[in-house]
């Protein structure tokens, strides 16, 4: 669109803009976002100054863009915040595992939407060295001595967690 004569030519028989208008309209979206380089932007503006059809199209795209920005955001439940920050706090209190060991942290979160949820998380990042693949088959309550469930309040729910060290 660097050198556009104006005004533009007539529309084609299929209703699409002809010649220069078509190339300008391909740039309108980036133009209203300010994402064209100065030369391209100037060429588009020069064309719009002389072409009422493309000017109207630009105004319509701007209106659509503004309407989309008015679409309300979908909001998460406040409980999600408590849940995530509670889990972060719980993980932050875990001491590093012995070298070559993996910590398995089991979270039991109660009363979320009237149901109970169990989360099992490998927390390998707390180990001092690169870890072997977690031995899934051994990570059961019966094959380990369970430490006591720790309890932590997280907002309006109670979260329990335990740390199991897997050899």
């Amino acid at each position, binding site marked *: 669109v660097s050198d556009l004569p104006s005004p533009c030519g007539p529309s084609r028989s299929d209703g699409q803009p002809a010649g220069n208008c078509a190339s300008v309209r391909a740039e309108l979206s980036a133009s209203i976002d300010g994402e064209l380089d100065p030369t391209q932007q100037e060429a588009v503006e020069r064309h719009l100054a002389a072409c009422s059809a493309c000017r109207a199209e630009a105004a319509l*795209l701007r209106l659509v863009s503004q*309407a989309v920005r008015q679409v309300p955001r979908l909001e998460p439940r406040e409980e*999600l915040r408590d849940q995530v920050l509670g889990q972060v706090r719980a993980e932050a209190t875990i001491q590093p595992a012995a070298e070559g060991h993996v910590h398995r942290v089991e979270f039991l979160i109660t009363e979320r939407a009237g149901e109970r949820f169990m989360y099992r998380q490998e927390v390998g990042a707390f180990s001092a060295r690169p870890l072997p693949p977690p031995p899934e088959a051994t990570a059961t309550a019966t094959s380990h001595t369970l430490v006591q469930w720790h309890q932590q309040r997280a907002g309006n729910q109670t979260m329990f967690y335990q740390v199991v060290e897997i050899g």
Partner: protein
Amino acid sequence: MGGDLTDEELMQLARGDPSAFDALFLRHWRAVFNYISRMVGGRDAAEDMTQECFLRVWRARHAYEPIGRFRTWLFTIARRLALNELTKRQAQHTLLTGDIENELRPMGRRDPVSQPDAMANQGLLSPAVADGVDAADPQEILMARELARAMETAIDGLPEELREIVILREMEDMSYEQIAGIVGCPLGTVKSRLNAARRRLRTAALEWLGEKQT
């Protein structure tokens, strides 16, 4: 905590101080939830993925290098989770019906209103309304809300590769460069996808206008 600190500074502080992570989370959790839920739909699934996204960030805090912008990295993780979920759902859908076409819910190609300047030239919505300025009259405010609702439906109907670009640009106000970083595509692709998405939204806006006038 976090008032004047950048995301990148907070992320580095989070290595030794969980409250720095709290501040980061509180800055971005609503945006991440909005992005994921607009991509995949369903509150419960979107909340689970939002949680997973931030826990991944938390667990990666020691490995984090502030080379790029934190927000780009955060949304890259959110996007990966959302796309994995969509892929999983499509696979399940294919298994059940052998037809994934409906899952993508592309918009129709109807364009019954051929005059693009209908709304703009008729002054249907003043700039004040479109900008959310209080000075607009109640009738205009109502129409702006209706148009926003029409746009919401139209966004939901976009194919995911167009939908994500619209959400990141219009709702998260990201630059083309940031979007390209998140989506992992060239700048030109962002530009052409956003243009294609806006053409479809424009068509939906004109359809909405056509219905208002009948």
